[in-house]
């Protein structure tokens, strides 16, 4: 689909018959159509909404995923006059975002209905967050980046405060809003500095060119500001303070989306900005990111040990997991980037699988305390098995998908001589295994008489209510991929490698760093 855009105006720059290449955003359009359809269906009342909104969302996101698959390896042309670029990297991350929304929606219907909040608006806001995140993955000028960042952020604030009669949800939304607005302001300040450096251009290409010739303190300031925004989005220590409270107070399916979809978009933004633009400041931002990664891995995994709430534990664990992914970013090699993509995809399945189990448990018992899981294997083998497999995978135990993702990251780090990062990563992985296993131990090892009161009063397992079947499908699907994906992970490796190979920006950065190494050696 090619749209010719013709403009006529007095004193206008000669923009006539420029190709818009609007086909690049076809997947986003599918999401947008689903969003509007959800809002329209919602007008017919809550009951109609709860019947029709789920299939509309599946349709929209499914179409988006298919369209993304069709875009894979397509000839690259910047669309919207340089606002958007659908390279393989963007497609891979957009795919992760769309899949995370799809899975989050599958596990949220029952949760949202049980809490008595409107379903149609919930789905619409989550789809808007997806739209923002997907645009963020491919945006290539500062204005588009800012607007898509805000679309993602504003929708996330709304979603975290969605359980409006709950003080914790309100607290989460307010905290997220205040910290997020500060981060947005910081980004805007950094972007305005970059805009000034280019002399009035907003495209990242122009920014990259301008940065190569200017080494003023202003550039360093802009780098720090941009880095702070990225670190806030991926919840890297010390920009993580919002994470535990927001994760604890937000509705659990929203947390599932925030921990995967929002984070994936953050990493895509990091690649686009840091690798694409700040090439001449390679050494500087890599040092900063090394510090962030070490801090995130250490603090995230150590503080998670002390948590009593499952959601809070997963919040700290997600901080630690972001630290692992940052190893790949710091490497800057072909393997490093591929490992990032692969680990995000693996994290999608194992983390959402864990969240599906937690949501199922809280729907049946109304609790998310780790001690309440005691003796669960007697009453609910499915949750026990699913949660155990997902947590083992998150901890990086061999046959699971997470192990292969993690080993690839460490391998890439070791090959690039990032010994500090790899050693810290290995040690903190061992620490993380402790708290993941202690949940499993709680569920499996306790005798029936030692089971918690909640488990003793466990309701009979039933899947008959609307919304339970999608939850079960998501749970089983995620657990299957997590368990079997490890053994059959070769297609995933190929996919991650071709994502990097099909991205000119990354290839350029890899070639530049290789030539720099050759010049030194």
């Amino acid at each position, binding site marked *: 689909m090619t749209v010719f855009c013709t*403009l006529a105006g007095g004193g206008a720059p000669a923009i006539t018959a420029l190709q818009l290449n609007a086909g690049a955003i076809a997947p986003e359009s599918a999401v947008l159509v689903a969003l509007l359809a959800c809002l329209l269906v919602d007008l017919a009342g*809550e009951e109609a909404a709860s019947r029709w909104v789920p299939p509309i969302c599946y349709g929209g996101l499914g179409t988006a995923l298919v369209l993304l698959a069709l875009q894979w390896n397509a000839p690259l042309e910047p669309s919207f006059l340089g606002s958007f670029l659908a390279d393989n990297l963007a497609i891979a991350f957009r795919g992760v975002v769309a899949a995370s929304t799809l899975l989050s929606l599958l596990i949220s219907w029952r949760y949202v209905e049980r809490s008595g909040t409107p379903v149609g608006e919930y789905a619409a806001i989550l789809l808007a967050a997806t739209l923002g995140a997907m645009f963020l993955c491919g945006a290539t000028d500062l204005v*588009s980046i800012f607007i898509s960042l805000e679309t993602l952020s504003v929708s996330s604030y709304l979603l975290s405060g969605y359980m*409006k009669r709950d003080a914790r949800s309100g607290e989460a939304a307010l905290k997220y809003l205040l910290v997020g607005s500060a981060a947005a302001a910081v980004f805007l300040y950094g972007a305005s500095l970059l805009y000034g450096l280019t002399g009035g251009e907003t495209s990242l290409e122009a920014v990259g060119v301008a940065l190569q010739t200017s080494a003023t303190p202003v550039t360093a300031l802009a780098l720090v500001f941009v880095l702070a925004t990225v670190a806030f989005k991926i919840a890297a220590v010390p920009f993580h303070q919002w994470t535990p409270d927001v994760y604890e107070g937000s*509705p659990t399916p929203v947390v599932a989306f925030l921990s995967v979809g929002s984070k994936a978009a953050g990493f895509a933004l990091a690649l686009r900005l840091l690798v694409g633009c700040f090439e001449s400041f390679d050494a500087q931002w890599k040092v900063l990111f090394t510090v962030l990664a070490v801090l995130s891995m250490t603090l995230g995994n150590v503080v998670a040990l002390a948590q009593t709430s499952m959601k809070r534990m997963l919040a700290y664990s997600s901080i630690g997991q972001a630290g692992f992914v940052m190893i790949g970013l710091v490497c800057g090699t072909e393997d490093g980037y591929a490992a990032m993509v692969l680990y995000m995809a693996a994290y999608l399945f194992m983390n959402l699988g864990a969240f599906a189990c937690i949501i199922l448990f809280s729907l049946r018992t109304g609790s998310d305390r780790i001690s309440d899981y005691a003796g669960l294997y007697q009453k609910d083998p499915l949750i026990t098995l699913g949660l155990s497999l997902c947590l083992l995978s998150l901890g990086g135990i061999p046959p699971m998908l997470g192990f292969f993702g993690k080993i690839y990251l460490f391998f890439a780090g070791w090959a690039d001589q990032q010994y500090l990062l790899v050693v810290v990563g290995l040690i903190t992985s061992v620490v993380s295994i402790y708290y993941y296993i202690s949940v499993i131990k709680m569920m499996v090892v306790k005798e029936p008489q030692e089971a918690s009161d909640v488990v003793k009063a466990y309701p009979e397992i039933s899947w008959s209510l609307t919304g339970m079947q999608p939850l079960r499908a998501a749970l089983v699907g995620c657990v299957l991929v997590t368990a079997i994906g490890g053994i059959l992970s070769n297609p995933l490796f190929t996919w991650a490698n071709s994502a990097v190979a099909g991205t000119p920006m990354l290839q350029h950065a890899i070639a530049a760093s290789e030539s720099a190494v050759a010049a030194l050696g």
Partner: protein
Amino acid sequence: MTIASVTQLICFVALSLTLVLGALGVVLLPNIVYSAFLLAGVFLSVAGLYLLLNASFVAAAQVLVYVGAVNVLILFAIMLVNKKEAMAEIPGLLLRRVLSGAVCLGLFLLLLRVDLTTPWAVPGPTPLGEDATTLIGIHLFSDYLLPFELASVLLLMAMIGAIVLARRDVYSSDVITGEAADQGLIEKERTPLLLESPPRDTTLLEKV
């Protein structure tokens, strides 16, 4: 000195005076309603300065956004709170005032120094004047088309979200089972998050 430049000078002096005096009033007056109205005056005089600089679009945006939206919102917030309460005496108020005054003065001197030491390119680029609006329009529908369209999604979502959060639906129930629901998290709090910490210092809230 032509009549045009004299008029311009008079306008500049008048606007600047309103701006500075208004801003001082916003900060120094004890009554917050006066401060809010004076803030509107400050915004308007900034819009006037923009007009003097031949930036009519920015001036219009300034009036629409700051006076029309932000300031009205501030006034709404003040009038909704509408609480007559004697404020507790803050210890060391004079010292605080002197300190914050010193910080502001320092910032002002810093700005002044930047202003005086920067080699400004005088005269700057010629202002576009009335063409600016046309040019902005062209940009919005060419190279900034994508963010422009995405902004509409952002605004739509913000509006819907605000309605959802503000709507007062007292009776809510599970659509599927018909059970009463409380629009809260499914994970009920057993050790409440807010009550774990000791009661908050309420004087902090009143100060704001």
